[in-house]
């Protein structure tokens, strides 16, 4: 099957960055500190917290399955679990959060009123949970972090919340470097790095010599990725650069042993129908892949041919079967001779999600 747009057009549109020249300089954007990393400075009583908990659960229950039906949003079971996680992140002693929920029944019967230290004020807790339910603000923006693989990554408005599907890219890279050890020692790029998730995930499986360059056009993404890289102590081996796709990588052209990317791939027409958490809150520049959704994927295929060393590996995430097949077809025919061992890999939901291959 072929997508509507001619490839020539796809290719040419994608070269122009979405942002024009006037980008705010890096130093002006300070990343927000996720709740779980803030100092516990708010003293509240367990009864007040209990009251909040009850209120929050009620609000969550009132949702029922209405959001699932309207746009595949969260149901109340999921929201109740989020409440526990919000508490877990807000309470001073993270391990005590489990005790908190365990002993609820004791609080009720004994009426014992202990004081608890929180990392955000009780007012904020009310505020945030209201935003979660009424505005459908994503839970991960509320707590300022996303648990992704074994990482806890800082995220905030302006940066895509890394998806569970994308975790698999790290496994794919892991398999490749186990088979071809030299790949684990060279220079890699994660283009459109967002929170830095893939860059950090893959760097942690490489040998000591490997380097990763992570690029993003968005200044917020660059500053959040830099924050996350530093939090994992990887600033000497992961370099975050701002710019459009391969532009900031001109100095390493032809030298990369691997490229990974999860570029925006949702067709523009689909953006308005997205689940509220995504469509209303996540940055469009991280989602919109042009009319067919393939603008950037095709740009990346072409760029990868120039950037990779012979034998170099790439893995791209796509919107599903159609895009995977289109890309394979494109690489086998339109730019034949550039890549080999092309492969489509499905995610856990069985959707064909990734295209992988090697530079010939």
């Amino acid at each position: 099957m072929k997508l509507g747009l001619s490839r020539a057009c796809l290719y040419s549109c994608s070269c122009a960055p979405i942002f024009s020249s006037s980008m705010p300089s890096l130093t002006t954007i300070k990343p927000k500190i996720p709740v779980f990393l803030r100092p516990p400075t708010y003293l509240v009583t367990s009864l007040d917290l209990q009251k909040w908990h009850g209120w929050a659960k009620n609000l969550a229950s009132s949702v029922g399955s209405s959001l699932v039906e309207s746009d595949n949003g969260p149901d109340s079971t999921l929201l109740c679990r989020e409440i526990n996680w919000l508490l877990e992140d807000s309470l001073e002693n993270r391990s005590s959060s489990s005790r908190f929920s365990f002993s609820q029944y004791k609080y009720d019967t004994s009426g014992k009123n202990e004081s608890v230290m929180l990392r955000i004020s009780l007012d904020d807790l009310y505020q945030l949970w209201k935003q979660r339910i009424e505005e459908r603000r994503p839970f991960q923006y509320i707590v300022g972090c996303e648990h992704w693989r074994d990482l806890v990554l800082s995220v905030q408005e302006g940066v895509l919340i890394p998806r569970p599907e994308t975790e698999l890219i790290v496994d794919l890279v892991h398999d490749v470097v186990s088979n071809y050890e030299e790949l684990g020692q060279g220079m890699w790029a994660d283009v459109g790095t967002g929170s830095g998730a893939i860059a950090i995930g893959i760097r942690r499986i490489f040998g000591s010599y490997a380097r990763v360059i992570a690029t993003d056009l968005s200044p917020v993404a660059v500053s959040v990725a830099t924050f996350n890289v530093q939090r994992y102590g990887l600033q000497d081996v992961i370099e975050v650069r701002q710019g459009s796709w391969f532009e900031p990588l001109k100095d390493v052209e032809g030298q990369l042993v691997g490229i990974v990317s999860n570029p925006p791939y949702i067709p523009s027409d689909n953006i308005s129908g997205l689940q509220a958490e995504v469509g209303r809150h996540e940055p469009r520049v991280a989602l919109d892949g042009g009319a067919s959704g393939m603008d950037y994927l095709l740009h990346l295929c072409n760029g990868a041919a120039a950037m990779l060393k012979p034998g170099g590996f790439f893995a791209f995430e796509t919107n599903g079967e159609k895009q995977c097949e289109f890309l394979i077809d494109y690489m086998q025919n339109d730019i034949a001779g550039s890549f080999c061992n092309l492969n489509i890999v499905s995610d856990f939901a069985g959707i064909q999600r990734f295209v992988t291959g090697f530079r010939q």
Partner: protein
Amino acid sequence: MSYLIVKRSCNRFSHLDFSKFQNFLSLNQNHKVLVSGLPSVLTKTIKNPSWSYFSVSKYHKFSHLSGKDKVLASGFGVLKSLFSTQAAVELSTSDGLTIDGIVASNWTILDESESDWKSHAAAIAQSIQVIKRRLQWKKLMVRLDLLSAQLNNPDLWDDPVHAGKISREHGSLMAKMKEVKALERELLEHIDMIKLAREEDDTELESETLKALLWMRRNSNEKELEALLSGEQDSCSCYIEVQGGAGGTESMDWAKMVMQMYKSWAQHHGYGVTVVDEMPGEIAGIKRATIKVDGEYAFGYAKAEVGVHRLVRISPFDSGKRRHTSFAAVAVIPILGDGSTRVQINESDLRIERFRAGGAGGQHVNTTESAVRIVHIPSGITATCQNERSQHMNKASAMAVLQSRLDQLEMARQAQINAQHTQSLTDIGWGNQIRSYVLHPYRMVKDLRTNYEVSDPDSVLEGEIDGFILSYLSASLDKDKDCP
């Protein structure tokens, strides 16, 4: 005889290790004392193996008794032939009290903090008996006699290989026997000493001996526990799974209470507790849940809980306030250590499913739902994890559960037995009731296997189940005794 004690203690003195002594102190401060009625077994936060503390208590006794010139007139002094087993000699105090005699006297066992020598002595005697049961004492004695006879046979060394085997076995059984005898002797010496102190109105000696008895009580407790928990997998961490029986919300609420009981129990013991999987009920409670209990001997204790737990109460979910009976099934799976042979899992035999897979996924969806279910296709065994915050971690957790389930299946297959604790939840028949919790019309928790009972269900539901566990474990020893 006090000379003997001092001399023995002096030998120990050189091995003194003060850090252990302090460890021992702090360890014991954490101990919780059980409801009465059971061998005074302590709940054990097993971090350090206990045998090493033994010499410490000797030192302690030494420090209090040295300088005393009381003479004990006790009836020991057994003359040994070269390979005597001492089997025929029953130790006693100067006035003829034996260990069996102490047990038979049924002295009340009080809390450790009560300074009552009879209570201490009874507790120690009971511990010694458990240790002896574990060693299959009578058989051990018969075997020792046999080996001694062979060793005394002058022709034995004509076959040096055989002789070596006999002599090694004799040596090892002898050591076990002597260790028990030493415990018995120590207890009897203390009793003689305390009686002497009372006769002579020596309050200082009396209180020192009491202290020594207390140390000994704690020590023999530790040894008793070691004897109870000597199964191959006992020292492993484990999963505990609870599933509600028929009866809707009432049963699901009961399942949740049972799970809560284990969470509290595990936390009191300093075990790590993680919820791996939890399927909440529609209105209240849980349909089923799995927790991971991390720490030494978690499996050894928890395996005593396998089976169906029954609750009788006025249901809070019944507007008619009628009495209901509900059931919850408990399964316990050991998490084998790295040293054990584990079932090899082929990636290609697995199907990994993500929940709420509906929709386009990827960038289209933002969800915190990251539950993962893994199906092992050849066996049909599945494992689910949904309590981690990332799919990757849920997958890792579910894989660990799957691994343990497959290991458990394999163990049962190899052993060709269906020992209770290797049963999975689905194997446990609802008829297999092990304990009954009655909140109405009277209040009582009773173990149907051991008849051990407690009249305060609240404390039990708050996790005080050691009494049940330990009485079951020691009852199982007796059962094992009949097996070869």
